[in-house]
Protein backbone atom coordinates (compact mmCIF):
# COMPACT_ATOMS: atom_id res chain seq x y z
CA UNK A 1 0.00 0.00 0.00
CA UNK A 2 2.27 2.69 -1.28
CA UNK A 3 -0.67 5.06 -1.27
CA UNK A 4 -1.11 4.80 2.46
CA UNK A 5 2.52 5.11 3.41
CA UNK A 6 3.06 8.35 1.46
CA UNK A 7 0.33 10.36 3.21
CA UNK A 8 1.43 9.17 6.63
CA UNK A 9 4.88 10.62 6.35
CA UNK A 10 3.41 13.69 4.68
CA UNK A 11 1.18 14.26 7.67
CA UNK A 12 4.13 13.98 9.98
CA UNK A 13 5.97 16.65 8.04
CA UNK A 14 3.06 19.05 7.91
CA UNK A 15 1.18 18.12 11.04
CA UNK A 16 2.91 20.18 13.73
CA UNK A 17 0.53 23.08 13.15
CA UNK A 18 -2.83 21.60 14.11
CA UNK A 19 -2.51 18.13 15.55
CA UNK A 20 -5.51 18.63 17.83
CA UNK A 21 -7.98 19.32 15.06
CA UNK A 22 -6.72 16.31 13.16
CA UNK A 23 -7.10 14.09 16.19
CA UNK A 24 -10.60 15.31 16.95
CA UNK A 25 -11.63 14.72 13.35
CA UNK A 26 -10.23 11.22 13.35
CA UNK A 27 -11.91 10.38 16.63
CA UNK A 28 -15.21 11.75 15.33
CA UNK A 29 -14.96 9.49 12.29
CA UNK A 30 -14.16 6.42 14.36
CA UNK A 31 -16.97 7.10 16.79
CA UNK A 32 -19.48 7.43 13.94
CA UNK A 33 -18.57 3.95 12.80
CA UNK A 34 -18.61 2.79 16.41
CA UNK A 35 -22.14 4.15 16.94
CA UNK A 36 -23.41 2.06 14.05
CA UNK A 37 -21.75 -1.04 15.51
CA UNK A 38 -23.02 -0.31 19.01
CA UNK A 39 -26.53 -0.13 17.56
CA UNK A 40 -26.05 -3.47 15.82
CA UNK A 41 -24.61 -5.04 18.97
CA UNK A 42 -27.45 -3.66 21.11
CA UNK A 43 -30.03 -5.03 18.67
CA UNK A 44 -28.51 -8.52 18.56
CA UNK A 45 -27.95 -8.67 22.31
CA UNK A 46 -31.46 -7.48 23.09
CA UNK A 47 -33.06 -10.02 20.77
CA UNK A 48 -30.91 -12.84 22.15
CA UNK A 49 -31.55 -11.94 25.78
CA UNK A 50 -35.29 -11.62 25.27
CA UNK A 51 -35.62 -14.68 23.10
CA UNK A 52 -33.21 -17.13 24.74
CA UNK A 53 -35.53 -18.44 27.53
CA UNK A 54 -38.25 -19.25 25.00
CA UNK A 55 -35.93 -20.75 22.40
CA UNK A 56 -36.75 -24.45 22.56
CA UNK A 57 -38.36 -27.21 20.54
CA UNK A 58 -41.88 -25.82 21.17
CA UNK A 59 -40.99 -23.13 18.64
CA UNK A 60 -40.67 -25.51 15.69
CA UNK A 61 -42.84 -28.39 16.90
CA UNK A 62 -46.01 -26.49 17.82
CA UNK A 63 -48.51 -24.54 15.77
CA UNK A 64 -49.35 -20.88 16.47
CA UNK A 65 -51.96 -20.15 19.11
CA UNK A 66 -53.77 -16.91 19.78
CA UNK A 67 -54.65 -17.66 23.37
CA UNK A 68 -51.70 -19.39 24.90
CA UNK A 69 -48.16 -18.10 24.34
CA UNK A 70 -46.84 -21.00 26.44
CA UNK A 71 -47.72 -23.69 23.90
CA UNK A 72 -47.56 -21.54 20.77
CA UNK A 73 -44.97 -22.36 18.12
CA UNK A 74 -44.09 -21.30 14.62
CA UNK A 75 -44.10 -24.58 12.73
CA UNK A 76 -46.58 -23.48 10.08
CA UNK A 77 -44.58 -20.27 9.57
CA UNK A 78 -41.26 -22.10 9.25
CA UNK A 79 -42.62 -24.62 6.73
CA UNK A 80 -44.41 -21.74 4.97
CA UNK A 81 -41.12 -19.86 4.66
CA UNK A 82 -39.43 -22.99 3.27
CA UNK A 83 -42.21 -23.46 0.71
CA UNK A 84 -42.26 -19.84 -0.40
CA UNK A 85 -38.48 -19.45 -0.59
CA UNK A 86 -37.90 -22.73 -2.46
CA UNK A 87 -40.49 -21.73 -5.00
CA UNK A 88 -39.04 -18.22 -5.22
CA UNK A 89 -35.62 -19.74 -5.91
CA UNK A 90 -36.98 -22.05 -8.59
CA UNK A 91 -38.74 -19.16 -10.33
CA UNK A 92 -36.31 -16.30 -9.97
CA UNK A 93 -32.82 -17.83 -10.21
CA UNK A 94 -33.09 -19.28 -13.75
CA UNK A 95 -34.86 -16.13 -14.95
CA UNK A 96 -32.32 -13.81 -13.37
CA UNK A 97 -29.29 -15.71 -14.63
CA UNK A 98 -30.79 -16.00 -18.13
CA UNK A 99 -31.50 -12.27 -18.21
CA UNK A 100 -27.94 -11.57 -17.06
CA UNK A 101 -26.51 -13.81 -19.79
CA UNK A 102 -28.60 -12.04 -22.39
CA UNK A 103 -27.54 -8.58 -21.23
CA UNK A 104 -23.84 -9.43 -20.93
CA UNK A 105 -23.29 -11.83 -23.83
CA UNK A 106 -25.90 -11.09 -26.47
CA UNK A 107 -27.35 -7.60 -26.06
CA UNK A 108 -26.20 -4.95 -28.51
CA UNK A 109 -25.82 -1.92 -26.24
CA UNK A 110 -26.52 0.50 -29.06
CA UNK A 111 -30.08 -0.78 -29.54
CA UNK A 112 -32.69 1.22 -27.68
CA UNK A 113 -34.61 -1.78 -26.37
CA UNK A 114 -31.54 -3.13 -24.62
CA UNK A 115 -30.94 0.25 -23.00
CA UNK A 116 -34.59 0.29 -21.87
CA UNK A 117 -34.11 -3.10 -20.22
CA UNK A 118 -30.98 -1.84 -18.40
CA UNK A 119 -32.52 1.39 -17.11
CA UNK A 120 -35.62 -0.54 -16.14
CA UNK A 121 -33.66 -3.01 -13.99
CA UNK A 122 -31.86 -0.13 -12.24
CA UNK A 123 -35.20 1.48 -11.47
CA UNK A 124 -36.86 -1.72 -10.29
CA UNK A 125 -34.05 -2.27 -7.80
CA UNK A 126 -35.15 0.86 -5.93
CA UNK A 127 -38.93 0.46 -6.03
CA UNK A 128 -40.20 0.13 -2.42
CA UNK A 129 -41.08 -3.44 -1.48
CA UNK A 130 -44.62 -2.46 -0.48
CA UNK A 131 -45.27 -1.46 -4.12
CA UNK A 132 -44.52 -5.06 -5.10
CA UNK A 133 -47.25 -5.97 -2.64
CA UNK A 134 -49.61 -3.81 -4.71
CA UNK A 135 -48.47 -5.61 -7.86
CA UNK A 136 -49.06 -8.95 -6.15
CA UNK A 137 -52.49 -7.93 -4.91
CA UNK A 138 -53.75 -6.22 -8.06
CA UNK A 139 -52.27 -8.43 -10.78
CA UNK A 140 -51.02 -11.77 -9.47
CA UNK A 141 -53.65 -12.51 -6.82
CA UNK A 142 -56.64 -10.92 -8.57
CA UNK A 143 -56.11 -10.62 -12.34
CA UNK A 144 -54.26 -13.97 -12.63
CA UNK A 145 -56.70 -15.46 -10.12
CA UNK A 146 -53.97 -17.10 -8.05
CA UNK A 147 -55.47 -15.80 -4.80
CA UNK A 148 -53.61 -15.58 -1.51
CA UNK A 149 -51.47 -18.66 -2.03
CA UNK A 150 -47.86 -19.83 -1.77
CA UNK A 151 -47.40 -19.30 -5.51
CA UNK A 152 -48.60 -15.66 -5.37
CA UNK A 153 -46.14 -14.96 -2.56
CA UNK A 154 -43.31 -16.71 -4.40
CA UNK A 155 -43.91 -14.85 -7.68
CA UNK A 156 -44.10 -11.50 -5.87
CA UNK A 157 -40.93 -12.10 -3.86
CA UNK A 158 -39.27 -13.50 -6.98
CA UNK A 159 -39.95 -10.31 -8.92
CA UNK A 160 -38.82 -8.26 -5.91
CA UNK A 161 -35.36 -9.87 -5.79
CA UNK A 162 -34.99 -10.42 -9.54
CA UNK A 163 -32.98 -7.18 -10.04
CA UNK A 164 -30.58 -8.26 -7.28
CA UNK A 165 -30.02 -11.64 -8.97
CA UNK A 166 -29.56 -10.02 -12.39
CA UNK A 167 -27.12 -7.36 -11.18
CA UNK A 168 -25.00 -9.85 -9.19
CA UNK A 169 -24.95 -12.39 -12.05
CA UNK A 170 -23.99 -9.72 -14.57
CA UNK A 171 -21.04 -8.60 -12.48
CA UNK A 172 -19.89 -12.16 -12.14
CA UNK A 173 -20.23 -12.88 -15.88
CA UNK A 174 -18.46 -9.63 -16.74
CA UNK A 175 -15.53 -10.65 -14.55
CA UNK A 176 -14.75 -13.59 -16.83
CA UNK A 177 -12.00 -12.27 -19.12
CA UNK A 178 -12.82 -11.94 -22.86
CA UNK A 179 -9.78 -14.06 -23.74
CA UNK A 180 -11.60 -17.14 -22.40
CA UNK A 181 -14.49 -16.47 -24.79
CA UNK A 182 -12.18 -15.68 -27.69
CA UNK A 183 -10.22 -18.88 -27.12
CA UNK A 184 -13.38 -20.94 -27.11
CA UNK A 185 -14.79 -19.26 -30.21
CA UNK A 186 -11.48 -19.64 -32.00
CA UNK A 187 -11.67 -23.39 -31.43
CA UNK A 188 -14.94 -23.43 -33.34
CA UNK A 189 -17.41 -23.45 -30.46
CA UNK A 190 -20.70 -21.69 -31.04
CA UNK A 191 -21.65 -18.75 -28.88
CA UNK A 192 -23.94 -20.82 -26.67
CA UNK A 193 -21.31 -23.56 -26.31
CA UNK A 194 -18.86 -20.88 -25.24
CA UNK A 195 -21.27 -19.49 -22.69
CA UNK A 196 -22.50 -22.77 -21.27
CA UNK A 197 -19.14 -24.56 -21.12
CA UNK A 198 -16.67 -21.75 -20.43
CA UNK A 199 -18.28 -18.55 -19.19
CA UNK A 200 -20.97 -19.95 -16.88
CA UNK A 201 -18.77 -22.49 -15.04
CA UNK A 202 -16.27 -19.71 -14.36
CA UNK A 203 -19.01 -17.32 -13.21
CA UNK A 204 -21.01 -19.79 -11.07
CA UNK A 205 -19.39 -18.97 -7.68
CA UNK A 206 -20.24 -15.28 -8.05
CA UNK A 207 -23.73 -16.07 -9.29
CA UNK A 208 -24.32 -18.45 -6.38
CA UNK A 209 -23.12 -15.87 -3.86
CA UNK A 210 -25.41 -13.19 -5.30
CA UNK A 211 -28.32 -15.61 -5.45
CA UNK A 212 -27.97 -16.61 -1.81
CA UNK A 213 -27.87 -12.96 -0.75
CA UNK A 214 -30.97 -12.25 -2.87
CA UNK A 215 -32.85 -15.17 -1.33
CA UNK A 216 -31.87 -14.12 2.18
CA UNK A 217 -33.40 -10.75 1.42
CA UNK A 218 -36.60 -12.53 0.31
CA UNK A 219 -36.70 -14.60 3.52
CA UNK A 220 -36.71 -11.51 5.71
CA UNK A 221 -39.20 -9.58 3.58
CA UNK A 222 -42.56 -8.99 5.23
CA UNK A 223 -44.17 -5.85 3.80
CA UNK A 224 -45.50 -7.17 0.45
CA UNK A 225 -46.75 -10.39 2.06
CA UNK A 226 -48.83 -8.39 4.53
CA UNK A 227 -51.02 -7.54 1.56
CA UNK A 228 -51.05 -11.08 0.17
CA UNK A 229 -52.92 -12.95 2.87
CA UNK A 230 -49.96 -14.03 4.99
CA UNK A 231 -51.38 -12.25 8.06
CA UNK A 232 -54.25 -14.67 8.48
CA UNK A 233 -54.08 -17.14 11.32
CA UNK A 234 -52.69 -20.39 9.90
CA UNK A 235 -52.54 -23.56 11.98
CA UNK A 236 -51.49 -25.99 9.27
CA UNK A 237 -48.48 -26.53 7.03
CA UNK A 238 -48.92 -25.67 3.33
CA UNK A 239 -49.55 -28.80 1.25
CA UNK A 240 -49.12 -27.37 -2.24
CA UNK A 241 -48.45 -24.23 -4.23
CA UNK A 242 -52.10 -23.11 -4.03
CA UNK A 243 -52.31 -23.52 -0.24
CA UNK A 244 -52.77 -20.69 2.24
CA UNK A 245 -49.59 -19.88 4.09
CA UNK A 246 -47.83 -17.68 6.53
CA UNK A 247 -44.12 -16.96 6.82
CA UNK A 248 -41.72 -16.38 9.71
CA UNK A 249 -41.41 -12.56 9.47
CA UNK A 250 -45.19 -12.19 9.35
CA UNK A 251 -45.66 -14.58 12.27
CA UNK A 252 -43.17 -12.48 14.21
CA UNK A 253 -45.09 -9.35 13.25
CA UNK A 254 -48.35 -10.93 14.44
CA UNK A 255 -46.88 -11.87 17.80
CA UNK A 256 -45.46 -8.39 18.30
CA UNK A 257 -48.92 -6.94 17.70
CA UNK A 258 -50.31 -9.08 20.55
CA UNK A 259 -50.49 -7.30 23.88
CA UNK A 260 -49.83 -10.35 26.11
CA UNK A 261 -46.27 -10.38 27.44
CA UNK A 262 -45.62 -14.03 26.60
CA UNK A 263 -45.92 -13.23 22.90
CA UNK A 264 -43.15 -10.63 23.17
CA UNK A 265 -40.64 -13.33 24.21
CA UNK A 266 -42.06 -15.68 21.62
CA UNK A 267 -41.48 -13.04 18.93
CA UNK A 268 -37.91 -12.53 20.13
CA UNK A 269 -37.27 -16.28 20.04
CA UNK A 270 -38.65 -16.52 16.51
CA UNK A 271 -36.41 -13.58 15.51
CA UNK A 272 -33.41 -15.53 16.80
CA UNK A 273 -34.44 -18.45 14.56
CA UNK A 274 -34.87 -16.11 11.59
CA UNK A 275 -31.49 -14.45 12.19
CA UNK A 276 -29.84 -17.86 12.59
CA UNK A 277 -31.19 -18.94 9.19
CA UNK A 278 -29.91 -15.71 7.61
CA UNK A 279 -26.53 -16.05 9.31
CA UNK A 280 -26.21 -19.57 7.94
CA UNK A 281 -27.06 -18.42 4.41
CA UNK A 282 -24.70 -15.46 4.54
CA UNK A 283 -21.87 -17.59 5.85
CA UNK A 284 -22.46 -20.01 3.00
CA UNK A 285 -22.31 -17.10 0.54
CA UNK A 286 -19.05 -15.78 2.00
CA UNK A 287 -17.57 -19.28 2.08
CA UNK A 288 -18.50 -19.86 -1.56
CA UNK A 289 -16.98 -16.54 -2.54
CA UNK A 290 -13.70 -17.18 -0.75
CA UNK A 291 -13.42 -20.84 -1.74
CA UNK A 292 -14.26 -20.74 -5.43
CA UNK A 293 -13.72 -17.20 -6.62
CA UNK A 294 -11.13 -17.16 -9.39
CA UNK A 295 -8.61 -14.43 -9.84
CA UNK A 296 -7.78 -14.04 -13.50
Amino acid at each position, binding site marked *: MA*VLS*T*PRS*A*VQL*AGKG*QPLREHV*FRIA*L*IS*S*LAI*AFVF*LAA*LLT*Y*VLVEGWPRLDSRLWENMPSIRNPEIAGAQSAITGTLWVISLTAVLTLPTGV*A*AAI*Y*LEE*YADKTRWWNRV*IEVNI*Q*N*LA*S*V*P*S*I*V*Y*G*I*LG*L*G*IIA*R*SFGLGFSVITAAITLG*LLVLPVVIIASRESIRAVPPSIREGSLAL*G*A*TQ*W*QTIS*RQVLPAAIPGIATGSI*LALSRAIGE*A*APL*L*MLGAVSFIRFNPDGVMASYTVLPIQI*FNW*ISQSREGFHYL*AAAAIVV*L*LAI*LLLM*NSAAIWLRNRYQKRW
Partner: protein
Amino acid sequence: MAMRDSATASGTPSSLARSRPRHGEAIIKAVLLLAALVSVATTIGIVVSLVEPTIGFFAQISVVEFFTSTEWGPLFEPPSYGVLPLVSATLITTGIAVLVAVPLGLAAAVYLSEYADPRVRKFCKPALEVLAGIPTVVFGFFALSFVTPLLRGILPFEIEIFNALSAGLVVGFMIIPIVASLSEDAMSAVPAGLREGSYALGASKMVTSLRVVLPAAFSGIVAAVILAISRGAGETMIVYMAGGGQPNFTLDIGKAMQTMAAFIAQAGSGDVPVGTVDYNTIFAVGSLLFVMTLVMNFVSARLVRKFREVYE
Protein backbone atom coordinates in the same frame (compact mmCIF):
# COMPACT_ATOMS: atom_id res chain seq x y z
CA MET B 1 -11.81 -30.64 -23.28
CA ALA B 2 -15.42 -30.96 -24.27
CA MET B 3 -14.80 -28.24 -26.76
CA ARG B 4 -12.16 -30.21 -28.63
CA ASP B 5 -14.30 -33.37 -28.71
CA SER B 6 -17.21 -31.60 -30.28
CA ALA B 7 -14.93 -29.87 -32.76
CA THR B 8 -13.41 -33.13 -33.97
CA ALA B 9 -16.77 -34.90 -33.92
CA SER B 10 -18.31 -32.35 -36.23
CA GLY B 11 -15.78 -33.35 -38.86
CA THR B 12 -14.43 -30.65 -41.12
CA PRO B 13 -13.37 -27.62 -39.09
CA SER B 14 -12.82 -25.99 -42.45
CA SER B 15 -15.80 -23.68 -42.89
CA LEU B 16 -14.92 -20.25 -41.61
CA ALA B 17 -18.29 -18.95 -42.71
CA ARG B 18 -21.23 -20.94 -41.33
CA SER B 19 -22.62 -23.41 -43.81
CA ARG B 20 -26.05 -23.76 -42.23
CA PRO B 21 -28.10 -21.51 -39.98
CA ARG B 22 -28.01 -22.53 -36.32
CA HIS B 23 -31.63 -22.57 -35.20
CA GLY B 24 -30.72 -23.84 -31.75
CA GLU B 25 -28.55 -20.80 -31.10
CA ALA B 26 -31.31 -18.46 -32.22
CA ILE B 27 -33.87 -20.18 -29.99
CA ILE B 28 -31.53 -19.92 -26.99
CA LYS B 29 -31.00 -16.23 -27.64
CA ALA B 30 -34.77 -15.71 -27.86
CA VAL B 31 -35.35 -17.54 -24.56
CA LEU B 32 -32.69 -15.44 -22.83
CA LEU B 33 -34.19 -12.25 -24.22
CA LEU B 34 -37.57 -13.37 -22.89
CA ALA B 35 -36.06 -13.73 -19.41
CA ALA B 36 -34.65 -10.19 -19.66
CA LEU B 37 -38.08 -8.94 -20.68
CA VAL B 38 -39.60 -10.30 -17.44
CA SER B 39 -38.17 -7.22 -15.72
CA VAL B 40 -39.87 -4.93 -18.23
CA ALA B 41 -43.11 -6.86 -17.73
CA THR B 42 -42.74 -6.28 -13.98
CA THR B 43 -42.63 -2.53 -14.45
CA ILE B 44 -45.59 -2.63 -16.80
CA GLY B 45 -47.41 -4.84 -14.28
CA ILE B 46 -46.76 -2.35 -11.49
CA VAL B 47 -47.98 0.58 -13.58
CA VAL B 48 -51.07 -1.29 -14.80
CA SER B 49 -51.97 -2.48 -11.31
CA LEU B 50 -51.66 1.11 -10.03
CA VAL B 51 -53.34 3.05 -12.84
CA GLU B 52 -56.81 1.54 -13.04
CA PRO B 53 -57.78 1.73 -9.35
CA THR B 54 -56.14 5.16 -9.11
CA ILE B 55 -58.33 6.46 -11.93
CA GLY B 56 -61.29 4.85 -10.18
CA PHE B 57 -60.29 6.66 -7.00
CA PHE B 58 -60.06 10.09 -8.60
CA ALA B 59 -63.40 9.54 -10.32
CA GLN B 60 -64.95 9.60 -6.86
CA ILE B 61 -62.62 11.83 -4.88
CA SER B 62 -61.46 15.18 -6.19
CA VAL B 63 -57.75 15.67 -6.83
CA VAL B 64 -57.91 18.95 -4.90
CA GLU B 65 -59.25 17.25 -1.79
CA PHE B 66 -56.62 14.52 -2.05
CA PHE B 67 -53.72 16.95 -2.16
CA THR B 68 -54.96 19.77 0.08
CA SER B 69 -57.19 18.35 2.80
CA THR B 70 -55.26 17.85 6.01
CA GLU B 71 -57.38 15.01 7.28
CA TRP B 72 -56.92 11.38 6.34
CA GLY B 73 -59.76 9.14 7.43
CA PRO B 74 -61.18 6.84 4.76
CA LEU B 75 -62.98 4.92 7.50
CA PHE B 76 -64.39 8.00 9.26
CA GLU B 77 -67.97 9.14 8.95
CA PRO B 78 -68.01 11.22 6.77
CA PRO B 79 -64.79 9.90 5.20
CA SER B 80 -62.02 12.36 4.31
CA TYR B 81 -59.25 11.77 1.84
CA GLY B 82 -56.49 14.33 2.37
CA VAL B 83 -53.16 12.65 1.76
CA LEU B 84 -51.11 15.40 3.46
CA PRO B 85 -50.92 13.69 6.89
CA LEU B 86 -49.48 10.58 5.24
CA VAL B 87 -47.04 12.64 3.16
CA SER B 88 -45.93 14.75 6.12
CA ALA B 89 -45.42 11.64 8.25
CA THR B 90 -43.33 10.10 5.49
CA LEU B 91 -41.23 13.27 5.15
CA ILE B 92 -40.75 13.59 8.91
CA THR B 93 -39.68 9.99 9.54
CA THR B 94 -37.46 10.05 6.45
CA GLY B 95 -36.02 13.39 7.57
CA ILE B 96 -35.11 11.98 10.99
CA ALA B 97 -33.60 8.95 9.29
CA VAL B 98 -31.49 11.16 7.01
CA LEU B 99 -30.27 13.22 9.98
CA VAL B 100 -29.00 9.98 11.50
CA ALA B 101 -27.75 8.18 8.44
CA VAL B 102 -26.00 10.89 6.43
CA PRO B 103 -23.55 12.20 9.06
CA LEU B 104 -22.84 8.77 10.53
CA GLY B 105 -22.72 6.99 7.18
CA LEU B 106 -20.51 9.63 5.54
CA ALA B 107 -18.12 9.75 8.48
CA ALA B 108 -17.88 5.98 8.45
CA ALA B 109 -17.19 6.10 4.71
CA VAL B 110 -14.44 8.73 5.08
CA TYR B 111 -12.87 6.69 7.85
CA LEU B 112 -12.99 3.42 5.92
CA SER B 113 -11.76 4.97 2.69
CA GLU B 114 -9.12 7.44 3.95
CA TYR B 115 -8.00 6.38 7.40
CA ALA B 116 -8.64 2.73 8.08
CA ASP B 117 -5.99 0.10 7.90
CA PRO B 118 -6.78 -2.47 5.16
CA ARG B 119 -7.28 -5.10 7.89
CA VAL B 120 -9.76 -2.91 9.76
CA ARG B 121 -11.59 -2.21 6.52
CA LYS B 122 -11.72 -5.90 5.71
CA PHE B 123 -13.49 -6.50 9.00
CA CYS B 124 -15.74 -3.41 9.06
CA LYS B 125 -17.28 -3.63 5.60
CA PRO B 126 -18.83 -7.09 6.09
CA ALA B 127 -19.97 -6.04 9.57
CA LEU B 128 -21.86 -3.14 8.01
CA GLU B 129 -23.34 -5.60 5.50
CA VAL B 130 -24.72 -7.53 8.49
CA LEU B 131 -26.60 -4.39 9.54
CA ALA B 132 -27.96 -4.11 6.00
CA GLY B 133 -29.06 -7.75 5.98
CA ILE B 134 -31.23 -7.64 9.10
CA PRO B 135 -34.92 -8.06 8.22
CA THR B 136 -36.99 -4.91 8.71
CA VAL B 137 -39.45 -6.71 10.97
CA VAL B 138 -36.56 -7.23 13.40
CA PHE B 139 -35.72 -3.51 13.29
CA GLY B 140 -39.40 -2.81 13.93
CA PHE B 141 -39.40 -5.07 16.98
CA PHE B 142 -36.26 -3.38 18.29
CA ALA B 143 -37.67 0.11 17.68
CA LEU B 144 -40.95 -0.67 19.42
CA SER B 145 -39.72 -2.61 22.44
CA PHE B 146 -36.22 -1.22 23.04
CA VAL B 147 -35.69 2.20 21.43
CA THR B 148 -39.07 3.69 22.33
CA PRO B 149 -38.89 2.79 26.06
CA LEU B 150 -35.30 4.07 26.09
CA LEU B 151 -36.34 7.41 24.54
CA ARG B 152 -39.27 7.69 26.93
CA GLY B 153 -36.83 7.25 29.78
CA ILE B 154 -34.24 9.83 28.77
CA LEU B 155 -36.02 12.53 26.76
CA PRO B 156 -37.68 15.44 28.57
CA PHE B 157 -40.72 15.76 26.27
CA GLU B 158 -43.64 13.40 25.99
CA ILE B 159 -43.32 10.41 23.72
CA GLU B 160 -46.19 8.10 22.90
CA ILE B 161 -45.84 4.32 22.66
CA PHE B 162 -46.03 4.67 18.91
CA ASN B 163 -44.00 7.65 17.70
CA ALA B 164 -42.26 9.02 14.64
CA LEU B 165 -38.97 9.66 16.45
CA SER B 166 -38.18 6.06 17.31
CA ALA B 167 -39.31 4.85 13.88
CA GLY B 168 -37.20 7.51 12.10
CA LEU B 169 -34.09 6.81 14.20
CA VAL B 170 -34.19 3.10 13.51
CA VAL B 171 -34.87 3.62 9.79
CA GLY B 172 -31.79 5.88 9.90
CA PHE B 173 -29.62 3.08 11.26
CA MET B 174 -31.08 0.73 8.68
CA ILE B 175 -29.92 2.98 5.82
CA ILE B 176 -26.44 3.76 7.22
CA PRO B 177 -24.91 0.82 5.31
CA ILE B 178 -26.31 2.15 2.02
CA VAL B 179 -24.80 5.61 2.56
CA ALA B 180 -21.52 4.26 3.95
CA SER B 181 -20.95 1.51 1.44
CA LEU B 182 -21.78 3.46 -1.73
CA SER B 183 -19.95 6.61 -0.57
CA GLU B 184 -16.92 4.54 0.34
CA ASP B 185 -16.92 3.05 -3.15
CA ALA B 186 -17.06 6.56 -4.63
CA MET B 187 -14.21 7.84 -2.44
CA SER B 188 -12.03 4.80 -3.05
CA ALA B 189 -12.41 5.45 -6.77
CA VAL B 190 -10.78 8.89 -6.42
CA PRO B 191 -7.28 8.48 -7.84
CA ALA B 192 -4.41 8.47 -5.36
CA GLY B 193 -2.69 11.18 -7.40
CA LEU B 194 -5.20 13.77 -6.20
CA ARG B 195 -4.47 12.94 -2.57
CA GLU B 196 -0.74 12.96 -3.16
CA GLY B 197 -0.98 16.34 -4.89
CA SER B 198 -2.86 17.69 -1.90
CA TYR B 199 -0.30 16.31 0.56
CA ALA B 200 2.49 17.71 -1.58
CA LEU B 201 0.97 21.15 -1.13
CA GLY B 202 1.18 20.66 2.61
CA ALA B 203 -2.46 19.84 3.29
CA SER B 204 -3.20 17.65 6.27
CA LYS B 205 -5.11 14.41 6.09
CA MET B 206 -8.34 16.01 7.30
CA VAL B 207 -8.11 18.84 4.78
CA THR B 208 -7.34 16.36 2.02
CA SER B 209 -10.32 14.19 2.97
CA LEU B 210 -12.76 17.08 3.23
CA ARG B 211 -11.56 19.41 0.46
CA VAL B 212 -10.17 17.02 -2.11
CA VAL B 213 -11.62 13.54 -1.77
CA LEU B 214 -15.17 14.51 -0.77
CA PRO B 215 -15.70 16.99 -3.64
CA ALA B 216 -14.13 14.57 -6.12
CA ALA B 217 -16.50 11.83 -5.03
CA PHE B 218 -19.48 14.18 -4.76
CA SER B 219 -21.64 12.66 -7.47
CA GLY B 220 -21.33 9.17 -6.02
CA ILE B 221 -22.08 10.44 -2.53
CA VAL B 222 -25.20 12.32 -3.65
CA ALA B 223 -26.41 9.23 -5.47
CA ALA B 224 -25.85 7.18 -2.31
CA VAL B 225 -27.75 9.65 -0.16
CA ILE B 226 -30.70 9.86 -2.54
CA LEU B 227 -30.86 6.09 -2.81
CA ALA B 228 -30.87 5.91 0.98
CA ILE B 229 -33.66 8.51 1.18
CA SER B 230 -35.72 6.61 -1.33
CA ARG B 231 -35.21 3.40 0.64
CA GLY B 232 -36.19 5.19 3.84
CA ALA B 233 -39.31 6.72 2.33
CA GLY B 234 -40.47 3.35 1.06
CA GLU B 235 -39.66 1.48 4.25
CA THR B 236 -42.78 -0.13 5.64
CA MET B 237 -42.39 -2.51 8.57
CA ILE B 238 -40.39 -0.26 10.91
CA VAL B 239 -42.67 2.76 10.52
CA TYR B 240 -45.77 0.59 10.68
CA MET B 241 -44.69 -1.21 13.86
CA ALA B 242 -43.02 1.67 15.72
CA GLY B 243 -44.73 4.70 14.18
CA GLY B 244 -48.23 3.41 14.60
CA GLY B 245 -51.29 3.22 12.40
CA GLN B 246 -52.79 6.61 13.12
CA PRO B 247 -52.80 9.36 10.49
CA ASN B 248 -51.76 12.49 12.30
CA PHE B 249 -51.09 15.88 10.69
CA THR B 250 -48.54 17.21 13.13
CA LEU B 251 -44.91 18.14 13.51
CA ASP B 252 -44.67 16.58 16.97
CA ILE B 253 -42.21 13.72 16.56
CA GLY B 254 -43.26 12.25 19.90
CA LYS B 255 -46.68 11.44 18.44
CA ALA B 256 -47.87 8.47 16.43
CA MET B 257 -47.86 9.02 12.69
CA GLN B 258 -48.83 6.90 9.73
CA THR B 259 -46.62 7.07 6.66
CA MET B 260 -47.79 6.29 3.15
CA ALA B 261 -46.15 2.86 3.15
CA ALA B 262 -47.60 2.08 6.57
CA PHE B 263 -51.07 3.03 5.36
CA ILE B 264 -50.76 0.76 2.34
CA ALA B 265 -49.65 -2.11 4.56
CA GLN B 266 -52.41 -1.52 7.09
CA ALA B 267 -55.24 -1.05 4.60
CA GLY B 268 -53.93 -3.77 2.29
CA SER B 269 -53.74 -6.38 5.03
CA GLY B 270 -57.41 -5.99 5.84
CA ASP B 271 -60.08 -7.67 3.77
CA VAL B 272 -61.12 -4.88 1.43
CA PRO B 273 -63.70 -5.62 -1.30
CA VAL B 274 -62.40 -4.96 -4.82
CA GLY B 275 -63.69 -1.84 -6.57
CA THR B 276 -64.73 0.09 -3.46
CA VAL B 277 -63.25 3.49 -2.65
CA ASP B 278 -61.37 1.93 0.26
CA TYR B 279 -59.73 -0.56 -2.10
CA ASN B 280 -58.87 2.13 -4.64
CA THR B 281 -57.42 4.34 -1.90
CA ILE B 282 -54.60 1.84 -1.34
CA PHE B 283 -53.63 2.13 -4.99
CA ALA B 284 -53.91 5.93 -5.11
CA VAL B 285 -51.48 6.25 -2.19
CA GLY B 286 -49.33 3.54 -3.79
CA SER B 287 -49.16 5.53 -7.03
CA LEU B 288 -48.02 8.63 -5.15
CA LEU B 289 -45.32 6.66 -3.32
CA PHE B 290 -44.20 5.00 -6.57
CA VAL B 291 -43.97 8.34 -8.39
CA MET B 292 -42.07 9.94 -5.49
CA THR B 293 -39.41 7.22 -5.39
CA LEU B 294 -39.21 7.22 -9.19
CA VAL B 295 -38.56 10.97 -9.22
CA MET B 296 -35.84 10.55 -6.58
CA ASN B 297 -34.13 7.85 -8.62
CA PHE B 298 -34.35 10.03 -11.70
CA VAL B 299 -32.86 13.03 -9.88
CA SER B 300 -30.13 10.81 -8.48
CA ALA B 301 -29.22 9.52 -11.93
CA ARG B 302 -29.23 13.07 -13.35
CA LEU B 303 -27.02 14.42 -10.55
CA VAL B 304 -24.56 11.63 -11.03
CA ARG B 305 -24.26 12.46 -14.70
CA LYS B 306 -24.06 16.20 -14.09
CA PHE B 307 -21.39 16.20 -11.38
CA ARG B 308 -19.41 13.20 -12.45
CA GLU B 309 -15.70 13.86 -12.42
CA VAL B 310 -13.97 11.62 -14.91
CA TYR B 311 -10.48 10.38 -14.17
CA GLU B 312 -8.60 8.09 -16.45
